[in-house]
């Protein structure tokens, strides 16, 4: 007799279908366990996807470096000296630190965090005005409502154009007024508006009360020469941004005669730290829900085993009869184990279907991720396979317990059971 004996399967199915209440009750345990497991996994995946989407268009492995006042006297310089960068610094960094992928410098009109007066037709706003390269958009993509962002052509020709945030637009324009092609004035210089952006769903560093003009235009219009304000640096993805930042600082300190132990002279911000924090959070969440799910599953399968054990008691007489008719212990065991497997697999599959349907409902309800980082809640194929294998192994294991019990007693004792 083989395991894939058709008669054996027929016997198992007839036993399960002819005792339908018992079968349904048994199924429920695993069914709920699987639903809980998959829903847990799916929603945490959904949250992870939500976060991923939130940070899409944001260069996560990036750092920002700017100049500050020094905190220590060094090489004859007093403390409190303002460190200023130029394009020479960019060149220096690019040549010496191979982990750097790109550097986008920015320069800001007025002092730090300061605002400049921007006017148009008698209206004015206090906005941040930046000289930028197009590549700055790689760090946190702008959500353009109209027009375009700065491009390479603007840089090469030092075109007097600008891209504005919609806060600027609201302050300077009437409702529904078309901004593209109009001019705004900054410090006596006119710039033509080529793009308006509004707040996006992703990460935004600049805010919307901002005017971006080409870096080269800025240099000419405001006579900034070789100076740069700060640098946005992307690090090649295989390198650790923190280590690269340390190298950058060391190099810049050397060049600008800053005390090696001075913590103030160079200001910096490591964006990747925040992202790794969030990644760790979702990973912990995923691990946690898998853990909970597995134990729920275990509980469900144990419930099945318990019910099978009870039914073995109930069925002792039946098993006694079968044995009197010539069933060997092996045949009895095989049947009970198979019953357990069929039940678990059936209820497991049903659970998968129900929970996947539940997840797609959740997706349709909350999945656009506007208010809440939640997107495409689903389970991966690997997760499905892992949980399914686990479920099968468990059901095999627990099928053995009642099966052993069923054949341990003498057939006459089983027959005498009422």
């Amino acid at each position: 007799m083989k395991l894939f004996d058709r008669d054996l399967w027929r016997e198992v199915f007839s036993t399960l279908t002819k005792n339908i209440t018992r079968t349904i009750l048994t199924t429920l345990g695993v069914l709920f366990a699987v639903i809980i497991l998959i829903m847990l996994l799916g929603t945490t995946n959904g949250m992870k996807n939500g976060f991923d989407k939130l940070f899409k268009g944001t260069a996560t492995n990036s750092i920002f470096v700017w100049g500050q006042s020094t905190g220590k006297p060094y090489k004859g310089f007093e403390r409190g000296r303002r460190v200023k960068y130029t394009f020479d610094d960019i060149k220096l960094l690019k040549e010496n630190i191979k982990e750097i992928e790109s550097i986008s410098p920015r320069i800001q009109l007025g002092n730090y965090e300061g605002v400049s007066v921007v006017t148009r037709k008698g209206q004015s706003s206090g906005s941040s005005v930046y000289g930028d390269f197009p590549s700055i958009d790689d760090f946190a993509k702008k959500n353009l409502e109209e027009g375009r962002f700065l491009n390479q052509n603007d840089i090469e020709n030092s075109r007097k154009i600008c891209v504005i945030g919609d806060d600027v637009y609201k302050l300077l324009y009437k409702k529904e007024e078309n901004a593209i092609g109009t001019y705004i004035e900054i410090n006596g210089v006119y710039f033509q508006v080529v793009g308006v952006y509004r707040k996006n769903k992703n990460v935004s560093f600049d805010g919307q009360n901002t005017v971006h003009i080409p870096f080269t235009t800025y240099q000419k219009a405001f006579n900034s020469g070789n100076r740069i304000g700060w640098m946005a640096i992307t690090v090649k993805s295989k390198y650790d941004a923190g280590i690269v930042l340390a190298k950058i600082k060391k190099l810049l300190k050397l060049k600008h005669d800053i005390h090696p132990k001075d913590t103030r002279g160079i200001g910096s911000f490591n964006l990747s730290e925040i992202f790794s924090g969030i990644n760790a959070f979702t990973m912990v969440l995923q691990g946690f829900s898998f853990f909970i799910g597995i134990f729920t599953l275990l509980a469900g399968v144990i419930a099945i085993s318990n019910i099978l054990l009870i039914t073995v008691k109930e069925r002792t007489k039946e098993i006694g009869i079968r044995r009197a008719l010539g069933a060997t212990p092996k045949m009895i065991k095989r049947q009970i184990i198979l019953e357990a497997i069929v039940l678990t697999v059936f209820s497991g599959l049903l659970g998968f279907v129900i929970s996947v349907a539940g997840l797609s409902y959740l997706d349709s309800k909350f999945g656009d991720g506007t208010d809440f980082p939640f997107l495409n809640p689903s389970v991966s194929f690997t997760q499905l396979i892992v949980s399914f294998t686990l479920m099968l192994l468990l059901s095999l294991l627990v099928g053995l317990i009642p099966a052993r019990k069923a054949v341990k007693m003498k057939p006459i004792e089983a027959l005498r059971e009422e």
Partner: protein
Amino acid sequence: MIKIENLHKSYPMGKDSLHVLKGLNLHIKEGEFVSIMGSSGSGKSTLLNIVGLLDVHDEGNYYLNGQLIENLDEKKAAVLRNKFLGFVFQSFNLITYKTALENVALPLYYKGVGRKERQKTALEYLEKVGLKDWAGHLPSELSGGQKQRVAIARALVTQPKVVLADEPTGALDSTTSNSVMEMLKEINREGMTVFVITHEEEIAEETDRIVRLKDGVIISDELTNKKATV
């Protein structure tokens, strides 16, 4: 066919044990129709269960079909039961959720007979006990006598050498009892060894040989008038 020498059996009762069979000697030849009588508790069922390999003895020798039954593991016992023995119980012992036909076919399943063959043979035997039209009915839809006839068909379907019946008519009225006995006689005429426990003299008189048990020993073992006169 069945040979018993100095058979002993005790049941453990707490610290003590209850000595039920106290040195039985019995030889039943192939084709015999034997009944066992005795008062309640005399050990009849115990003897039959040992003969049927549903229980094990403590001492003495038991030969079934010439084979010494000793240290039999449950797998071998199951195979022997399937091959040589058919059981008829007082309480029928049909599987409640299976139809008459499925019940009769079950021993053939354990014998490894193919499905089509099983159905066919089972139906033949149901016909033999006059229940062909009841093949698709569950035991709960059958009368006591019908149930016992299904059980007899089930006992016969593998064509065993010995049919063991523990008070097969115990739960039946006298007319049904008679028809069941007729059936057993018919089986016996076909050459099967039949070994039946009964409380009723009239039933025992229908058999060829009566073995009387009392307190675990055989007090008499004689042929009936019927047989003796033939």
